[in-house]
């Protein structure tokens, strides 16, 4: 860990202006991932800009969308009555994440920025294209049990580790960003994270001088009827082997809208739109769920140790949809 200076920002402008000029500086909110990364020497920041004072707060329904302030804590959002009732997948994804202690600290904005748990990324002695571009990816021939089967490249197969982002991906969430000029832009969550390609060091579209202000989730029928299922090696405090966030709008026995997003299998939060299309206009039967699940893994590229994910994620999709209809 390196020495760093610490600045408390009282306005968004103050914070983003620092980063505009000092791109090595980092924003710190809950710090639950940043400090780990710095202690392990994976990231070195000469300056930390504390953004906890920023007024990016509130969990409310506005213009047909749930607006979650980026500084809200995971536990507060997960236990919020509005979220619980109208966006159950979001609540479930949050409360199945990490541990109560971490959820009490970690912010929503920070959660979307969390970095991969790939063991090669997390140990600086390993080559890693994400951490050290051009150094190689030993995970391709090594320990890839936890790594991605979708969206990988020759350069990187690191899994996006989040739960919340999976639920948000399913429910068409939008990320609201603000830059040093005070200009705001809205980016669909699905476009917020990017595929590794040949530049795995780049994980999101966020610019150096931009901050996440809020996350907006449309209040739809499929959000109200949504569900998140997470499969992991132990009952709590583990990242997903696979996970699925699903939402359905079913009327008169027919599916009018379907949403399926996957975790633990993609290099970014993975939306399975082909699978969704297969469900629209169909009955909510196990047979149809299975067909959709099969479509969701089309094109998967498993490695030696993560082959099981192809089947497990399909079963998880079916499970999530069945539980949703139960």
């Amino acid at each position, binding site marked *: 860990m390196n020495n760093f200076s610490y600045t408390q920002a009282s306005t968004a402008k103050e914070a983003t202006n620092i980063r505009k000029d000092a791109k090595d500086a980092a924003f710190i909110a809950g710090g639950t991932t940043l400090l780990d990364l710095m202690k392990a020497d994976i990231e070195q920041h000469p300056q930390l800009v504390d953004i906890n004072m920023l007024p990016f707060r509130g969990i409310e329904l506005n213009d047909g969308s749930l607006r979650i302030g980026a500084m809200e804590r995971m536990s507060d959002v997960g236990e919020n009555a509005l979220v619980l009732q109208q966006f159950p997948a979001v609540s479930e994804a949050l409360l199945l994440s990490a541990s109560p202690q971490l959820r009490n600290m970690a912010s929503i904005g920070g959660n979307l920025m969390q970095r991969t*748990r790939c*063991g090669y990324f997390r140990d600086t*002695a*390993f080559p890693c294209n994400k951490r050290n571009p051009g150094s190689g990816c030993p995970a391709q*021939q*090594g320990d890839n049990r936890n790594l991605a089967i979708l969206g990988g490249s020759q350069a990187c197969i690191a899994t996006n580790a989040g739960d919340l982002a999976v639920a948000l991906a399913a429910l068409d969430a939008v990320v609201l960003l603000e830059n040093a000029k005070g200009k705001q832009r809205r980016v669909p969550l699905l476009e917020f994270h990017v595929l590794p390609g040949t530049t795995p060091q780049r994980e999101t579209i966020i610019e150096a001088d931009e901050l996440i202000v809020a996350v907006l989730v449309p209040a739809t029928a499929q959000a109200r009827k949504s569900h998140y299922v997470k499969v992991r090696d*132990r009952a709590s405090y583990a990242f997903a082997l696979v996970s699925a966030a699903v939402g359905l709008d079913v009327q008169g026995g027919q599916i009018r809208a379907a949403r399926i997003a996957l975790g633990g299998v993609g290099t970014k939060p993975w939306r399975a739109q082909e699978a969704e299309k297969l469900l629209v206009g169909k009955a909510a039967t196990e047979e149809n769920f299975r067909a959709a699940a099969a479509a969701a893994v089309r094109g998967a590229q498993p490695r030696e140790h993560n082959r099981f994910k192809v*089947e497990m994620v399909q079963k998880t999709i079916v499970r999530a949809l069945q539980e949703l209809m139960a």
Partner: protein
Amino acid sequence: MDTEPTFFETNGPGTGGVVGLPLDRVDGFAKVTGQAKYSAEYRLPGLTYGVLKTSAIAKGKILSIDTAAAAKEPGVLAVLTHLNMPKLAKTPNDAEGKKAIGAPMGFLPLTSDQIHYAGQPVALIVADTFERATHAASLVRVQYAEEKPIGSFLDPKAQVFDPEKVQDGKTPGHTRRGNPQDALAASAVQLTATYVHAINHHNPMEPGATTAVWEAPDRVTVYESTQGVTRTQKSVATMLGLPQEQVRVITKYLGGGFGCKGASWPHTILTVQAAKAVGRPVKLSLTRPQMFTSMGHREDQTQTLKLGATKEGKLTALIHEKTSTTSPWDNYAEPNSKIINLLYECPNFESSYQLGRANVMTSTFMRAPGEAPGSFAIECSMDDLAYQLGIDPLQIRLLNYAEKDPSNGKPWSSKSLKQCYARGAELFGWSKRNPKAGVTREGRYLVGMGMATASYPVHNSQGTARVRLYADGHAVVQTGATDLGTGTYTVMTQVAADALGIAPDKVRFELGDTKLPTAPNSGGSVAAGTVSSSIYMAAQDVWQKLTKLAIQDKKSPLFKAKATDVVVEKGRLVLKANKAKGEDFAALMKRAEITDMEGSGAGKYGSGYEAAQAAANADPTKKDEAGEHSMHSFGAHFCEVKVDAELGTVRVTRWVSIHGAGRILNAKTARSQIIGGSIFGIGSALMEETFRDPNLARYTNASLGEYHIPVNADIPEMTVEFIDEHDPYINAMGVKGIGEISMVGVAAAVANAVFHATGKRIRSLPITPDKVMNSLAV
């Protein structure tokens, strides 16, 4: 028995009404209020901080180390490498040094430019704060000439060989009894199965930590996180070339160890040297990632077990082969075969070990070393035999019940296994189990019930203790034992109170210091039996002296009584024939104008108790068997699991463990220890696995986020009971010890329950959801 005949007697061990009580931990308050000082918590004047820089490669050579940038950092006092580390009198890097050091220690880094494993220390940085030392470590630049490492015994380039002995020479590499090959070939039933065990790491809550302070140029005190202060003292003194007493080792509290603090490890002596180099006290605490490469692990291993039986289910032959990974300098393998050799009556047995050298830190003892993976193999194969023949799994074990030790033909000193089976089956509801596998369903879950046998030896051991009983009714009791956190402080306070006839809160029990009477390592389940017996014997010494005093004192009611007619009952010396006649020790001591009486005692444990001479003279591989009896604890675990039939997740939903382990010193701490061991075993059964990259020989999940141990949500309510067992052969207190047996057979009980649930046998630990899901798809 070789103990000196006594001319007096108390009413015997454990008769004072205190031993066995579920007393709260005497050190509990100190621990929860932060007053209990662990080895990295001594704030000594002038204290400095050591940080290890470790190797980025697993094999090769250091070409150069640039320490200039680190040395220039503010607060940095020294950057020690193999080029400037003070020289030692002896290192374990040659055979002579290794032998002299005695304590298990294979290789000392920072002695040359050679790199043998990933995570090997290449520099030790000392600074005035931990943060400065850590930052300076990141500035040390090392150039390596990297060679392709060997990742494990499975690596095609690994040198695989048949060792003459394994485990520091304690276990022969090959053992045979009867004619197993022919017996197997002639058997009506023949089963062959291969079992795989992942790398496991101990991961105690408290990492390895050393605080070293040189009191004089030739005298050093070491606050060390170790399971044995004397063993550390001897190894450090030998390496330094100092007389043993010039090294003082102090370990007042331990945050767990599970075996990884049993040997001597490089960071300890390196910290002592660093303190010498900077002329100030140095504290070094291993980081969690460093814990994966600094204090050993349970090795990656494959076992093949061939089992022959009659069609009635009686065992005829067992042939066990184990292949595992060892380090470049060691021949370590857990002795898996020992438990397989004695658990069931079987006339023919053979075991052999193979080792493959790889570029890894050496493996070491980890809770139930050998018994844990060995029991996984035999107890799963016994289950296979039961299903194959349509016999109840519990019944097949009774059918092969060993009335004497089949490995050596000796009678057991005590064995309550039948009672364990019966009581466990009753509490668990074993009779309600459907004999068929894969047919019990509850909604989406497949439900399974499994059981397994546990056993652990009473190893030969000895120790000493000192008791000082004061006339005002309190006592100070001392021994150089260590408390892993399992309750040694508490149970030994009880033993002393019981033997002295005073209340537990009148006993001050001190441990963890080489200035105190020597005690063995707290390992191999020997501590409870050895230390309690030492204290009991020391108390007898006090009574012996007081009896002498009383019968010579004209004013004593016992004046001129024969010493052999006097007994001690709850602190009163009385006539055996007329217990109304006698007096309290306090009255006697006050009249004699003595403030206190001191006694010392030697506790012997296992074969050393029954046959001290024979044990002392025995070959290292035979020490435990020097007596007339074979000495072991036994137990049985019963497990219910629910398996998600689609996703493959396994949850343990019910658990019953029953043990017969001699005298239980504290019902509460003993129960906690069995629960802890069972959870430890459930961890190895379902989730614990360190993954070593096969190409780079480096761990990829060296953190508690990614190395999964059970969390509360994984563990159900657990039922634990002990069978009342009296064993006169093992030691004065009749204590067998329960630290290790608590996890023996646990993985098999879980695996057998998974088989019963699914009808699919998984022989590769841990049994993760992917393996279960794949098995169900077949």
